[in-house]
């Protein structure tokens, strides 16, 4: 596994919902090496720390990377001022992505909540009709990438906290329902309570589950051990790095 650091041209920028933006970069070397579930560290001019953003989609043929992020503060706001034709300074691809079988023994379920929806898109694309995507948002005006998910052929279930679109409430109930008919794997990305619920439902159903964690990061490459998470692995408690040992971990090993 290797990563690169450099400035790459932005070939497309789109505003999705609210303060959420989609960027496509031309970076063939990175695209060639990227795996689903990995992330990039984006430099924000005037800020010390880079912003870790999950890779939404990789197109190895076109040599492009798609990144979707929400403006949450000064750093992401600065990055969002970049437009098509500008250069984005990134370190990528970073971290340890999802374990994805080429021949899964049954249906694959992806669970995405809010800004945890983008990193799961390429899983839905990989498995198409053999995938169910359960996506949760705060309300109808926060929904993103729904058409992209529909286009993958995956059965897509929308949920909103306020019930303004789709199923009202959290993703736990639809996931539980979906697991009744069996599944090969559950993959989840989103807020911690959602990940915890997804890992628990998968465990109860006896289905392997992987979750993508988020934590405040320093270097992003494993050197500074800032982004710690605790797991129980091989019967032992271990403090690992979200950036290098993750961000994807097995659902049943994470101490939430």
């Amino acid at each position, binding site marked *: 596994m*290797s*990563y*690169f*650091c450099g400035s790459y041209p932005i070939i497309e920028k789109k505003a999705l919902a609210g303060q959420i933006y989609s960027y496509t970069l031309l970076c063939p070397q990175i695209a060639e090496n990227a795996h689903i579930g990995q992330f990039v560290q984006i*430099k924000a001019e005037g*800020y*010390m*720390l*880079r912003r870790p953003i999950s890779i939404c989609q990789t197109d190895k043929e076109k040599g492009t990377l798609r990144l979707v992020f929400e403006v949450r503060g000064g*750093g992401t706001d600065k990055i969002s001022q970049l437009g098509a034709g500008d250069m984005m300074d990134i*370190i990528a691809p970073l971290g340890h992505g999802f374990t994805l079988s080429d021949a899964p023994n049954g249906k694959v379920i992806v669970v995405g909540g809010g800004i945890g929806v983008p990193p799961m898109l390429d899983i839905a694309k990989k498995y198409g009709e053999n995938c169910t995507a359960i996506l949760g948002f705060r309300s109808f005006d926060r929904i993103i990438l729904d058409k992209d998910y529909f286009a993958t052929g995956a059965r897509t279930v929308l949920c909103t906290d306020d019930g303004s679109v789709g199923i009202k409430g959290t993703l736990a109930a639809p996931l539980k329902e979906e697991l009744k008919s069996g599944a090969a794997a559950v993959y989840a990305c989103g807020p911690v309570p959602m990940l915890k619920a997804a890992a628990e439902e998968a465990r109860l159903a006896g289905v392997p589950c992987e979750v993508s964690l988020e*934590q*405040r*990061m*320093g*270097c*992003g*490459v*494993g*050197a*500074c*051990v*800032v*982004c*710690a*998470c*605790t797991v129980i692995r091989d019967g032992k408690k271990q*403090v690992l790095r979200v950036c*290098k040992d993750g961000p994807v971990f097995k659902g049943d090993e994470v101490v939430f």
Partner: protein
Amino acid sequence: MSRPDISVDICGVRLKNPVIAASGTYGFGEEYTDLYPLERLGGISCKGTTLQPKDGNIPPRIAETPSGILNSVGLQNPGVEHFIKTDLPRLKKQDVAVIANIAGAGIEDYAETAARLDETDVDIIEVNISCPNVKQGGATWGVTCAGAESVTKAVRNATKKPIMIKLTPNVTDITEIARAVEAQGADAVSLINTLLGMRIDINTRRPILHNNVGGLSGPAVFPVAVRMVWQVHNAIKLPIVGMGGISSAADAVEMMLAGASAVQIGTAIFNDPYVPIKVSQGIERYLSDNGIAKVSDIVGQVRPWE
């Protein structure tokens, strides 16, 4: 004019350039080799290592600040035995000075860790008496002359390796501490460690760091570091490794003019992993442009106003 000599000598150890990756920001030298070989650095100060493995503090462990960061890692590390067996052999295959950075809760921990390293190929032992992020030990040793003396003395008795004491800026007069460690047989000092700081999320009213407080580093602390290096340079005869917010060759030259024989770079690497190389190249250019033959010729050469 031939190329300037950018090599430096720190307590008998030759560094091919004066740029050292700062402890805690560069792991054990493994993570950045995707971008460039470790050999491009003058040295690497490894992640703070303790006698026993340590899990560190509960996250979040980092917060952004104006021109800097706060961190409270809390010395998470795999322990000195792991360092000796796994990391050191890998590091010693490369042409780079290896500085082990040690910390402990009690005097005995420091002495025992240094004793284990005494029998290894480590070039220098940097003794961290200034970590602000652990409840026991760490900075508690570095804020009094008596504490600094006792750790220095114990480590001195435990090893013949060059020892470099890393000083905290969180004191009233850093020169007193520097004199105390010099008197106890330290071979060099490095400064500054981080300044104690705090950030609060105004919506949740919670400190951003789970440890509530943490160490401030980055360009925000640079002028404080320059001032302290200058004061210490005027107070003791030992070589000084200067650090604190260096992010460019100009910063490094400034730190050396203040009295540093070499520099460490940390926080800036998070922003641009290539900074250590750019700084080393930039120092060489500064020397060429100014007709200076050796980098050691600029150490302490600030011309203070009378």
